[in-house]
């Protein structure tokens, strides 16, 4: 008798969980992980690359710093920045900065990330963040979203690439200015900025 009651209670609990899972697919503000504060050391992590090989953050660091950009294959805002991201990669390589792309979208598989990069001419290393673990760790919510680590691996900038989706109305090249300051050994004056973007498609 007791066993059957326990089973009934267990099945009832399963039903409740099933309801909750079906009914909910978004996140309230309190669900989202908070990003690390400027100055926080970002711990090493390893993710598979779109190229199939595994890469650690440590192996991808630039001498003067590392630029991590959360990107997407399908988001028009992120795609609108493809050329600019590639240009930052090319312009700042010689200045000791490396650019890494991270795709955390559960809706965009690795094969798609790889073909998208080839098609769009993105030559920087792109990592696939299955289960959005690194997006969670860094509190990333949208694409594109930028994190810059300094030479010591501390977060020095967190925000946007620039202040305008359209090239002709850019008045503030926030990411480049931050990189130039870091490269000159100065503190970053403007450590971030908000911009519209597609939300990262997290696993529920």
């Amino acid at each position, binding site marked *: 008798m007791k066993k059957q009651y326990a089973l009934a209670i267990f099945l009832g609990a399963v*039903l409740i969980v*099933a309801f909750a899972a079906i009914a909910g697919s*978004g996140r309230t*503000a309190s669900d989202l992980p908070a990003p690390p504060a400027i100055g926080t050391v970002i711990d090493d992590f390893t993710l598979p690359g779109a190229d199939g090989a595994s890469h650690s953050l440590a192996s991808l660091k630039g001498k003067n710093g590392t630029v991590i950009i959360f990107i997407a294959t399908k988001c028009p805002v992120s795609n609108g920045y493809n050329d600019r991201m590639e240009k930052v990669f090319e312009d700042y390589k010689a200045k000791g900065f490396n650019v890494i792309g991270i795709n955390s979208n559960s809706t965009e598989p690795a094969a798609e990330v790889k073909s998208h990069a080839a098609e769009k001419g993105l030559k920087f290393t792109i990592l696939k963040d299955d289960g959005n673990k690194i997006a969670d760790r860094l509190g990333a919510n949208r694409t594109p979203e930028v994190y810059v680590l300094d030479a010591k691996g501390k977060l020095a900038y967190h925000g946007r690439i620039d*202040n305008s989706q359209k090239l002709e109305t850019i008045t503030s090249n926030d990411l480049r200015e931050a990189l130039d300051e870091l490269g000159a050994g100065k503190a970053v004056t403007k450590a971030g900025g908000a*911009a519209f973007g*597609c939300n990262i*498609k997290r696993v529920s």
Partner: protein
Amino acid sequence: MRFHLSIPIAGVLTLGLVCAAVLAQQKTSIARAPITPIIVNGHPVDGVDITDYGSDVREINLDGLKKILQRDGNDKRPLLLNFWATWCDPCREEFPDLVKLDGDYKDKGLNFIAISLDDITDIKSEVPKFLNQMKATMPVVLLNVNDPEPAIKVVDATWDGQLPATFLYDHEGKVVFKHFGKIKPDELRAAIDKEIKK
């Protein structure tokens, strides 16, 4: 004689699965009603900050957005803002729920404005096309700003610009509910109900 619980357990499970299937398939069919004007502080929002392109969607700039957010003591209605774009898939997916919500709360004292972040070149094409498909009834404006940051910050200090984003303000202009990503309709409705009762 042993009493077998397996039959009622199977019954509850089946009931649960049927309910879940119904929940997952909610469809809306609202007849297209005329677009309501945007009323702020008892006056239609108009003037230099809003450019009318003759379609149902009007353009606003940062000042227009600030006007929408301004509350005066007399308008006790809560204000619901949903930020979306035709290029944002979850925004498109949640839209039918928002249309349904607008229908249900229009006469219950909710001020609901949907704010599109589409490109200004789509204000007469893609945006009204989508709204017609959705049979949208709420007023929609398109926010056109050069720098997104001041607009994002004036809406809510914790918002980083991700879309979709939904904010509910009380009559004092305080954010009493916010949600990033697709809305959970029940959660949003509960928050609105709470404000309307005040």
